Structure formats: structure tokens, C-alpha cells
């Protein structure tokens, strides 16, 4: 209590550090350290929250009968990986090409992310020349997604898809990059 400490005793305290004063100092340092950690750890954990993997959401792109054989189409959908307040940015697109039935009578699709493998810009499909072209640095891909020319180090990113009850479904694509492609997240 402040009333207990007279001016003279305060002056004495400053002169010679007693055991209890040193204890108090260490206590203050330890408490400060603990308090810092108590704030810093959850805060850093919060900051690193977005680093997470394996979020699988399937998106229905409609009945497979909607996809004519050997035609590439831009299909748009609301990406469920985002937030409800994403607005128009939630609207993502993928290029879908129906390849028909394979040898074992299963439907086959080619599905590409819209993003160029070079720096992520949106490629455009030119059906007349059967090429995807990127407006940024002129990366070009063939209709099967393979790299045709320009700076991209690889072909277009393939989306994971499945046919469920006659509907084409894809794993909702994240923003694909060279080391984090759209391979199966499962």
C-alpha cells in the first residue's frame, strides 16, 4: 500500500537491492516472458491458419449428356473453397472436353484449370485453331492440354473429376501453382 511506504524507506530501497527486490525483478521478467508467449503463440498460429491442406469439395458441373464429344467448353461454377462473401471472385471456370467412352466403356473427360502454368493468367480457348493461348506472355497449349509453345514450363493443370449418378463432378480447384497442382487432394 502506498500509505505504508515513507519517503525515507523508498530511498533506502533504491540504494541496496534486497533479496525480495531481486526476486520481484525475476518475477517481472518471467511474467513478461510468459505474457509475451501467451499473446504471440496464438497470434502466430492465427496468422498461419491459411496454411492447410486436403480440403475436398466436389462441384457438380451437370449431366454428362450436356457435354458434346470432342468439344472444349468453359464451365463456370461457384467455388466452394472460398468464403460466402467472395462475390464475383467465387465464380471460377474450368475447360471441359468430353472424350467419349474408353475401352472399358467408361466416360472420359479432360478438365483443365483456366490458369496458365507460367504465371497463372487466364488462358483463352480458340476452337478454330484448337489451341489455348495466354494473354500475358503468349503461352500456348494444345487441345489435350500439352504445352505447345511459349514460356510455360509444363502443360495446363488437370482437375480431378468423377462421374456420379450421370453427373460430372470435379474437386473444387484451388489456385494452382507449379508445386501445388490440382492432383487428387484425398
Amino acid at each position, binding site marked *: 500500500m502506498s500509505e505504508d511506504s515513507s519517503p525515507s524507506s523508498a530511498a533506502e530501497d533504491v540504494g541496496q537491492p534486497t533479496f525480495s527486490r531481486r526476486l520481484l525483478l525475476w518475477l517481472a521478467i518471467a511474467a513478461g516472458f510468459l505474457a509475451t508467449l501467451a499473446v504471440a503463440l496464438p497470434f502466430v498460429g492465427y*496468422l*498461419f491458419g*491459411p*496454411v*492447410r491442406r486436403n*480440403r475436398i469439395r466436389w462441384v457438380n458441373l451437370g449431366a454428362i449428356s450436356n457435354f458434346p464429344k470432342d468439344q472444349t467448353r*468453359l464451365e*463456370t461454377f461457384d*467455388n466452394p*473453397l*472460398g*468464403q460466402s*462473401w*467472395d*462475390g*464475383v*471472385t*467465387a*465464380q*471460377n*471456370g474450368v475447360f471441359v472436353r468430353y472424350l467419349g467412352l474408353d475401352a472399358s466403356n467408361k466416360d472420359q473427360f479432360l478438365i483443365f484449370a*483456366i*490458369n496458365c502454368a*507460367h*504465371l*497463372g*493468367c*487466364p488462358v*483463352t480457348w*480458340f476452337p*478454330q*485453331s*484448337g*489451341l489455348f*493461348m*495466354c*494473354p*500475358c*506472355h*503468349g503461352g*500456348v497449349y*494444345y487441345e489435350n492440354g500439352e*504445352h*505447345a*509453345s*511459349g*514460356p510455360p*514450363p509444363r502443360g495446363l493443370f488437370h482437375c480431378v473429376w468423377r462421374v456420379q449418378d450421370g453427373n460430372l463432378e470435379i474437386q473444387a480447384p*484451388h*489456385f494452382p*501453382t*507449379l*508445386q*501445388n497442382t490440382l492432383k487428387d487432394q484425398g
Partner: protein
Amino acid sequence: MKWLRALGNWLDARLKVRESIMPMMKHPIPRGAAGRMGWWYIFGSASLTLLIVQILTGIGLALVYVPSADNAYESLLALDYEIPLGWFLRALHYYAGSGMVVMVLLHMTQVFLFGAYKYPRELTWIVGVFLLLCTLGMFFSGQIMRWDPDAYWGLGVAAAMVGRVPVLGPSLVDLLLGGPIIGADALSRFFALHVFIIPALLLFLLAIHLWLVLKCGISAPPVAGQKVDPATYDAEYEKELKTGVPFLGEAAIKDALVSALAVIVVVVIAAVVGPKGPTDPPDPTLANVNPRPEWPFLWLFGLLSLSPAGAETFLMLVFPVLLIGALLLVPFIANRGERAPSRRPIAVLTVIVVVTLLGILTYQGATSPWSPRMQAWSGDPVPVRIVKNSTPMELQGALVFQFKSCRNCHALDGVGGKKGPDLTFVGTRLTRDQLIDQVSNGTPGGGDMPAYGKQISPAEMTVLAEFLTSLRPKGQPPARTAIAAPGKEQQK
């Protein structure tokens, strides 16, 4: 007036502002820095003045702007078209920001040329380098606030670059975007960067920068032969200040005048040119977008586009670090010796080379001839001059040429894409066989031209070759292969 002075005196008797601020304002500076050479010293204060305009207009914009992915675009439109003078605040925020980048760069160049970073002002320079980075960081994050396709794909390019970092890439992309896709989380993050994090850092560094200017003093204009020697500099500088003049005088008047002019210039530009964008909504499925970085980054866009593919990742990730490191090392490489530009040819040459390089790369970035023109195949018709006297085969070939989007990369009469060579007179350069080879196989080894072999039917190829070989000036024969007849000695 008398009352006002009395009030001022009453306040200052308690606040004691005068006794702490006036000595700072009146601190002596070298006589030379206040004279005619003082006109070189105005870029720093002009940067500061424009920063104040940025803070003011930034707060103004924050009163209306909604940093949410679903409403940001609409709030920008409201600022542009509905809220009185909202358009002006947006325009001023953009052009004062641009002016600030210009002033910071000029300030840095002047300090470099005058050797003002040498002893004892090394730390002032280092803090200045970080202030430049903060300014550029504000520019990039500010572009994201303009929530349009340029902002969206700017984030995409940044994420794709960061994603190339070995091992950590994918995690860094998640941290940058705040989530798996470009959207609400990314905008909120960059809003926090633009409004809280970078400004706080910038103001903190600025305080240190100004503190250092006061403590180390303003450098005298350089004189050839007057070398900086850390052992004697302090005493010499002190001696120089004996004949110095207070900052609050001729020097401050120059600063005030130029700052006022800088503000007037950006206000006039803002009022005449108006706000920049937003262009379209940030819809990632919109076709025909043409993402471009803001002008301070066009040189990097140019550099990355013109570099060989093998050097790309290095240029994206390592080169910027080396560049910043080089800037930070400047005062340690040469913190003594001559300061006058006339005695420092390498320094002058460095400035000339760097300015020329940045200028050329910025021009290249602005015109970006490497980008295909995505609408040229349907938007730019084959010039009538070329097809006026064409045969039906050639006309059919011209159609194939347009239809196969050749035009996106190849110009005719200078109109069309600039990625590939202009084909106006290709018939004089390549023979029919060479043309067919080029179109079928493209550039060998996955170069600039895709192989059209599988995309084009034999009939289409025939008429296309017919059209291309016809592309010659009047009266000029088609190209021939330069093979000497067998058995004959080669001439020359």
C-alpha cells in the same frame, strides 16, 4: 491578433512546443545547401508532402471503400460516379502516389550522385532503401484495392511467382492469398497490408529517417577534391556549420515552394485525367482480360518476359533480393572518398546504365510486344491492299490465316500481334517448303511458335502456303533456297 498571440503564449507556456521544435527547424545546415545548389535538395521533402496527401486522401477513401470481395467493386463505382468528389479523391490518391514514387526515386538518385550516403549517413541511406520498398509495397497493395481484373490477376501472378519458392512455395501461396482461391481472404489481407501494416512500418521508418537527418545533419553540396574521411569528417562538418544558415530560411522556402508545386501538379493531373478504373468486375471467368502490372513494376514484367526460360525462376526470386542487397551495400562499398559526381565516373555511369535499363524495360513492359493480341484473329482484317489481286486459292489461305489465329502473334502491315515476325513480306524470306515446315512444326524445341501440324488439314495447309508465298512486294520473286547446283564451285 493580439488575442491569438496571447492564446499561443498561454498554450506554449504549458506545452513547451516552441523550445523543442524551433531548435529543430532552425538547426544549422551548410551554407551551400541553402544556396543555388539547394534546389537539388527538394526531392525528399516533396516525397514527404505527397505522403501527407496520400494519408489524407487514403483516410477519405476509407470512409466509403468496402474492403470486402463482394462489395469492393461497387463501392469503387459509387466513389467514381455517386459520391460528390469521390472520383477526385480516387484520382488524387493514384496520382499523388505515383508522384511519390517518382520523388522517392529522384531523391535516391540525387543522394547517390552527391555521395550523400557516405559517412556518417550510411544508416540514413539504409532506412531510405526500406522506405522505397514500403512505397512500392503501398503501390502494389493499392492496386489490389482496385478490385478489378488487373487486381485479381496481379494477385495471381504474385501467387504463381511465390509458388516457385523451393519447398515452401505452396505454404507461402496460402499465406499470401489467405486461402485456397483468390477472393475475400486475399482482399482483406491486402487491405490490412495497405492500410495498417505497411503504413505503420513506413511512418516508423520515416521517423528514424528524419531523426537521422537531424542528428547527422544535411550534407553540404559536394566539392571535387573534398574527400570524406570518417576520421576527420565530423570535425570538418562542425566547422562548416559555423558558417551555416538555419534550415528555416532559404532552404525551407525552396522545399515549401517545390512541395506546393508538386501538389498542384498532381491535383491538376487528377482533375484532368480522372480516377484510374476500376475496369471490369474481378470475374475470373471473363474472357479477353489483359492483365498488366502498375507502372512501377512494368520493368520487372518486361525483364521476366524477355529473359530466357531457364533464368526465369532466378529472376523472379533471387534477383530482387540481390538488387535490394546491392542497394543496402552501397554505403559500405564506398563510405569514404570523393563525393563530387565529376570525380566518381563509375557512380555516374551506374546511374546512366540503370536509368536506361529501367527506361527500356518499362517501355517494353508498357508495349509488351511478347503478348499475343487475343482479338486480332477476328478484329484486325487482312489489309485490302494485300488481297486486292489475290487468286481464289490465296483468298482461301487468307481466311485460314485469320481463322487459325495466326494473326494474334503475326502482324500484316504492322497490324496484329507482335510476338512473331511481321509477315507482310514473308514470301520473300521463306520458300513454300520452309513455310509449310515452319507452320507444321513450329519453333523447334518448344519455342515461340506452336506446331500447327495436327491443327491444320492438308487442304488448309496448301491454301495457307499459297497465301503466305504471295505476301511479297509487287514484282519481287518468291524466295528460293540457296543451294548451289551440284558439281559447281561455290562463288566467292
